[in-house]
């Protein structure tokens, strides 16, 4: 492509929206964090490890990670019906799968770790913001983890790959339309989650993964900084 691709909000193709990350936002939770991609704000609260109830769901071999993704009714311009929906159940499960590989869940038999993710403001990439917040909240809860995960959504607008899609871009209709690819990676670039609905060539998908690798690195640094800053405040002897 000869002409520079123009994004609706004037960002460069590999530019993330301004990120805010904060740890310890929910005082009553065992661990909590806030993560925002521009207008998309997610709050994650971790409770546990605690005894699994109901008892028949207890697993004596390893613990259970239970994620609940919830979009608050006022998070979008048209009020959405509160409560669980087909979409929220799917994203909850996806979040569990994205986080499970890094958590040393086998240390907590018969126990459950509850992760509640609330989207208080949505402008696309909510699941990515949710996963990022959840990873930080789990670390804050003192749960042993192999690594931290960072998530980013890669979009294909017509034929152009862009980083961190916004709602406006998600509704792109020109040419091939918009394809959204949320990808979650560890700090070493191992993929723990990838979703894709739409059309993309294998070559371009590989390209998208490489772009995600670069972007998650940036996100990881921000998550790391937020965790360290919080500890610094708490530590002061």
């Amino acid at each position, binding site marked *: 492509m000869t002409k520079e691709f123009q994004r609706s909000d004037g960002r460069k193709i590999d530019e993330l929206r301004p990120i805010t990350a904060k740890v310890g936002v929910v005082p009553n939770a065992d661990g909590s964090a806030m993560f925002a991609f521009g207008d998309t704000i997610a709050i994650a609260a971790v409770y546990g490890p605690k*005894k699994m109830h109901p008892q028949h769901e207890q697993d004596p071999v390893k613990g259970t990670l239970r994620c609940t993704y919830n979009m608050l009714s006022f998070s979008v311009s048209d009020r959405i019906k509160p409560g669980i929906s087909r979409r929220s159940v799917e994203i909850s499960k996806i979040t569990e799968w994205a986080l499970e590989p890094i958590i040393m869940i086998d240390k907590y038999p018969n126990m459950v770790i509850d992760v509640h993710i609330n989207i208080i403001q949505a402008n696309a990439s909510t699941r990515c913001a949710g996963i990022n917040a959840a990873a930080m909240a789990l670390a804050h809860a003192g749960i042993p983890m192999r*690594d931290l995960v960072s998530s980013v959504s890669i979009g294909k607008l017509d034929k152009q790959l862009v980083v961190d899609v916004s709602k406006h871009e998600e509704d792109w209709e020109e040419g091939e339309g918009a394809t959204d690819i949320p990808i979650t990676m560890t700090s070493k670039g191992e993929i723990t989650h990838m979703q894709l609905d739409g059309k993309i060539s294998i070559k371009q998908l590989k390209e998208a993964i490489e772009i995600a690798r670069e972007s998650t690195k940036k996100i990881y640094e921000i998550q790391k900084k937020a965790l360290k800053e919080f500890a610094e*405040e708490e*530590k002061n*002897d």
Partner: protein
Amino acid sequence: MTRQIVIPGEVIFAGEDYLPGEGTEKRKNEIISLIYGLAEESGKLVKVIPLSGVYHPRRGNVVIGQVENVTFNGWVIDIDTAQTAFLPLMEVPRYVNKEGLEEVMDIGDMVVAKIFGMSKRGIDLTIKLRGLGKINEGIILKINSNKVPRVIGKEGSMINLIKENTNCNITVGQNGIIWIKGDKVEDELLAKKIILFIAEKSFISGLTDEIKKLIEKEK
């Protein structure tokens, strides 16, 4: 010795010189932190102390709990952990009639106990040492278990300061449950107020001086 803040997956030390301790893992020749907390190195052993999260029971910890159930051979104690704790009849330092376990401790009673064993099935408690046993009177309060080291202070400096100034006997359970026993209710309430102040303002510098000021004001 310096302490550094680490996050999960972060390399603490590289090279073959160090041994992985609690909260760490060795991958190839790097010591990697598994938890979010402060990394400490002593005698080549590297360990990470968590800063937050729920209470993780350890062998040797003195804890305070509530009797949840009475069984034919002991008591099930709730010590605010995911695993259930059990105090067997054998670990009570006096003769107990097998028919009347409730007479020693009944459901709802509070007890100071020590963790002497931990297995996959649960936590085993004992009250065979001095200072352990059923609580009969006083005030019980609960703070975040991560604040316990602050309440105790360096080598017990903080807790001794409170004890001296309030004439109360204070037992701090590692699980964050605290038992205050004094001669007068006013003393007990003052001790409670000071402890809650520490738990809330644990991050401020010069905490000991602040506490001294608070004691002066209250007297």
